[in-house]
């Protein structure tokens, strides 16, 4: 299976702080990769590097065999990478329909075409009353719109940044289902950055664990979940040693 995304030894620091440290990973076709790690691990920074919002100090990022390191965000989106934001960035004064149609405009030229695609996405996600303004939506709908916008760009790689934050368990289940269906229907690779374990463990084919900017380990969800090193990262070094983990 070909690699859709290759991150080669990427490093990014801010002043003296190294946020991403010689990090490498890859995402294959139709794969759902979960990216987990404690707060401050560098996950969102990594997403920003891949999507062009930040430039890496060192390393390369390759998408579909093409070098995208250092390209501006809009060019990367045009190539086929879409994302949602951890702190969502809605279009408050636009309707759901307009907001999602904006995404479609990457692929089509006319508004009519864009609206057609937007309606498809809206139906797929089950959003009701698409003429409502984005500022009037509830939390779940906001996140669905954020997803919908990204979907409308017809991406080959979708990066989802902590979408489950603040959702109830039943809503998390819904999102889990949605992500799986997105992969099946849209034929897209997905990276799920998440803190909410039930979501990321339940939906990923493979998990990558990040801590202090570096990759700690990767593997199937069950392997990672029972990996003592991973446990100690979340519980802290001391507790990890108590559990018999060698540092």
């Amino acid at each position, binding site marked *: 299976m070909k690699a859709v995304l290759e991150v080669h030894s990427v490093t990014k620091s801010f002043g003296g702080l190294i946020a991403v440290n010689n990090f490498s990973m890859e995402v294959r076709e139709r794969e759902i990769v979960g990216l987990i790690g404690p707060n401050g691990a560098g996950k969102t920074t990594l997403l920003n590097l891949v999507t*062009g*919002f930040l430039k890496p100090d060192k390393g390369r990022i390759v998408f579909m065999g093409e070098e995208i390191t250092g390209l*501006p*965000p809009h060019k990367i989106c045009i190539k086929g990478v879409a994302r949602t934001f951890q702190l969502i960035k809605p279009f408050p004064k636009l309707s759901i329909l307009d907001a999602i149609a904006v995404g479609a405009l990457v692929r089509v030229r006319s508004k009519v075409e864009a609206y057609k695609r937007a309606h498809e996405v809206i139906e797929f996600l089950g959003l009701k009353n698409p003429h409502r303004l984005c500022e009037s939506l509830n939390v779940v709908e906001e996140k669905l719109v954020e997803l919908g916008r990204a979907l409308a760009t017809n991406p080959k790689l979708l990066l989802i940044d902590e979408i489950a934050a603040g959702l109830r368990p039943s809503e998390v289940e819904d999102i889990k289902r949605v992500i799986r269906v997105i992969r099946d229907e849209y034929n897209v690779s997905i990276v799920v950055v998440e803190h909410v374990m039930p979501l990321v463990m339940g939906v990923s084919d493979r998990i990558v664990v990040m801590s202090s900017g570096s990759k700690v380990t990767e593997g199937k969800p069950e392997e990672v979940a029972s990996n003592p090193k991973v446990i100690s990262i979340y519980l802290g070094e001391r507790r990890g040693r108590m559990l018999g983990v060698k540092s």
Partner: protein
Amino acid sequence: MVMVGLPIVENLIAGLLMGSFYALMAVGLTLIFGVMRIVNFAHGELYMLGGYLLYYLATLFGLNNFVALPIVIGIMFVVGVVIERTLLRPIIVEKLGDEYSIIITFGLSLFLVNFAIAFFGPEYKSPPPYVQAYRVQLGPISISGDRLLVASIAIIILVFAYLIISKTKIGLAMRAAAQNREGAMLCGIDIYKVNMFTMGLASALAGAAGALLSTIMLLYPQAGLIPAIKSYVIIALGGMGSLIGAVVGSAALGIVESLGTVLLSAAYRDAYSFLVLILVLLLRPQGLFGVRVREV
């Protein structure tokens, strides 16, 4: 060679002296931008108000300048707090964008200038000087002693401000908020109080600059416009949000202007700061000390 060099050195020193006043303005603007993330387009009018306050305290109440100055600083601090509370608080509360702060401080600037025209009168005013004019001789170089004194007061005030920012609790809160507002709020820092204090402090500094400089330069309702514009250039040059940048930039601008008038053309004196701004935008938008400025 000495004949040619002398005016240049004297101009250099004169430029540095001017730089100390610019620094009062620029540091205040930097504080506001660093902590509150907005550019205060009424900053020049705070300078102007400081000048008029000194003028009226000296002429109406017969106070000595050295007595009036702390009073001006105190009043301007309160003015800054009031402005933040009434006009700028909605920015945090309602999560407003850049345009709001730009336009509303612009409106405030317009209001204050015309207020001064209407109630203070459009004509030039001359507050009494701090000391009588005299010259100081440093070897072959002659500089204006009264300017030196007034600039020294400016520097003392700057040092006080630095101490407040680096040694006090509220100063720590300001620095925390400047680095990471959400994080600071999570640590229990009262962002409303920090903002009000920041605005008050910046306003006090600008008022002090006005109270000092208006005894050397002319005082009139629009007197704040030019220092303000130069301050914007300075913070862009120094890197917005960088205090060191503000100080270095102020000195740099003072020197560039002085040398520009001597070496190039005096008529374009005020234009040099803008040319500097354009150059900064072209070559190094983050300024000398700043961080990234790209939108995304």
